[in-house]
């Protein structure tokens, strides 16, 4: 039983890292970033490539992945998203185009495939990252065998969620960002450089997704299309939790992770995913504002 709950918690943790970035960008900027899943994918490939060429372990890959995806996020914000503020559904469509581009970039080894060059670790195939020995095993807790790696995922996610919370509620950046979330016009009128804050928030959210990608690389195969289900799940978490509510995202990712883990334990992954979708649909219909939305005017 405890091991099942642990599986649910670790699923929820990865979900949370993906969703946190979306919660910030969607809440603050009203941008639906469909390329967010590709940040997860790029993070996972960073783990693959750094271990292949630089001999990095998973932990060393994390800051690298954070940087790479944060920069990529910054570029997307400056080139595409910035021009579409206020056009919510259009950001969804444009970033879907961006997502295709990023996928193709990996599949075609950044265009090198056209010249017949194949790069180990890129291309359309499947990649794997091996876990270091000390993360690989299990330990027993109250009679159940618990995977060390899953506990590691939970620890990293909790640490990053705490960091995000601190950033949002204990720094001037966070205060400005929260002001933009509540009322962008008013925030701008108060002298907040909304363009700069938005760009930074976008980069930070992308970076978190990159770290999630590294974590995923440790227990899943890595391939160019792996991001699409992630962005869908991330959005379901954000919408169910309530747009603009960090605590909502945290709780709903925990809930959905547990539902997924528990159902998968008694039936299979397909049913588990179907039930997650059904729960989210029911919640959105029942409370379109989400479970934990703050009261706007």
């Amino acid at each position, binding site marked *: 039983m405890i091991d099942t709950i642990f599986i649910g918690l670790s699923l929820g943790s990865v979900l949370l890292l993906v969703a946190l970035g979306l919660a910030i960008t969607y809440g603050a900027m009203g941008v639906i970033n469909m390329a967010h899943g590709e940040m997860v994918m790029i993070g996972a490939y960073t783990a693959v490539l750094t271990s292949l060429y630089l001999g990095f372990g998973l932990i060393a890959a994390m800051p690298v992945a954070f940087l790479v995806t944060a920069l990529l996020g910054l570029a997307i914000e400056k080139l595409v998203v910035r021009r579409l503020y206020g056009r919510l*559904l259009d950001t969804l*469509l*444009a970033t879907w185009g961006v997502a295709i581009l990023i996928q193709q970039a990996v599949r*075609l080894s950044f265009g090198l495939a056209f010249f017949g060059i194949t790069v180990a670790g890129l291309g359309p195939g499947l990649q794997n990252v091996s876990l270091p020995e000390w993360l690989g095993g299990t330990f027993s807790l109250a009679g159940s065998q618990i995977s060390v790696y899953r506990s590691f995922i939970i620890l990293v996610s909790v640490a990053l969620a705490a960091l995000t919370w601190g950033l949002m509620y204990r720094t001037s950046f966070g205060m400005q960002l929260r002001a933009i979330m509540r009322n962008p016009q008013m925030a701008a009128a108060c002298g907040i450089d909304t363009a700069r804050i938005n760009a930074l928030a976008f980069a930070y959210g992308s970076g978190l997704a990159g770290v999630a990608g590294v974590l995923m690389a440790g227990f899943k195969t890595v391939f160019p299309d792996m991001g699409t289900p992630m962005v869908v799940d991330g959005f*379901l978490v954000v919408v169910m939790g309530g747009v603009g509510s960090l605590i909502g995202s945290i709780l709903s990712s925990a809930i959905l992770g547990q539902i997924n883990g528990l159902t998968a334990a008694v039936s299979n992954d397909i049913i588990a995913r179907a039930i997650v979708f059904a729960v989210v649909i029911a919640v959105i219909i029942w409370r379109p504002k989400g479970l934990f939305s703050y009261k706007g005017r």
Partner: protein
Amino acid sequence: MKLSKRGLNTAAYVVFIALILAAPLVFDVFWLNRLSKYLVFGMLGAAIALSWGYAGVLNLGQGLFFGLGAYAIAMSLKLASATSLAQGSDTPIPDFMLWNAEPGAPTELCCITQGSFLWIPFQHTWFGILMGIVLPVVVALALGLIMFRKRISGVFISIITLAVVLLVRLLIVQAQPLTNGFNGLTDLGYLTVLGLEFDPYMPQTYYLIAISLALVLIGTRMLVETRSGLILQAIRDDDRRARFLGFDVPRYQAFFFCVSAAISGYAGMLYVMASEFASPTFMDLSFSITMVVWAAVGGRNSVLGACIGALLINMIEATVSETPALMEAWRVVIGLAFVFAVLFLPRGLAGLAMSLRDWLVARSAAEPRSLAEPAPAEERS
């Protein structure tokens, strides 16, 4: 000659319909079959334009209705195929059901696997055809009434529809003994209606699809011109204002949501006739979003534009997919085209065409009016 907006609009429809009806004179059967699939995609583009452009409802699960239509008729065609008839039973049995059946299970549709009785009415082709429209409409009606009554709008509709299509896709995959799971329904028979057999590589199938598309385009265009269509656009602009004018907003939205679903379901049926399979990939997220891409590139506010967008993209794709390396590059082009269309051409190709139309009308209005020609009635488009 004096040009009017309405005249040029009509001309665009006439030219397009004439072109698709004349295509068999140019293309061989192989290309005609491909083209007929793209015409089906064009129909989907029109359905998206209706719900997105005119109703302001961005459905990211249009593939659900397409898939339901496709599966409904594919079930009938599966039962009508040779592979189902030759299974040593009085009534047809889909081959995959036998492969998956428990040893000793009766080889009857009623009870070969759990739920297989649901296939029984599909032995009548007419039932399959009927369900191809009824199923999508019933689902759309239920979903639409719930969503629109709760005044859910904008991106929340997109998320709900997206989650619903993925949910149904998972259920179909999960119900493997009943639906053949990931593999979908293949080895289908030809549709035979009133003694007419629709071989996908024969011109009659192409004509059926082309005429269907022409009727759907004209019908949709007329529908948005009606008072109800006008009120629908008003609701898109400001649903509260419409409500306080006395319109039952959820009913209008649900009605047009159902029409869009019916068109998609019909498109799904036609696609099965042309391609001879139905698959859960019809309900993939990427397919539903791809439809929206077609409409965005073609012009979300134009029924014909969205249709042409779908046709163009697919025809170019078919041409480049001859070479595998180009195919991958093509996806890059699609991604770029999409970003650029949203950024720089929010009204799509149709927006360009409309600007050209307005310029032509303005230019012809500036010409001195000849005495021989009567002044045209005032035009509103």
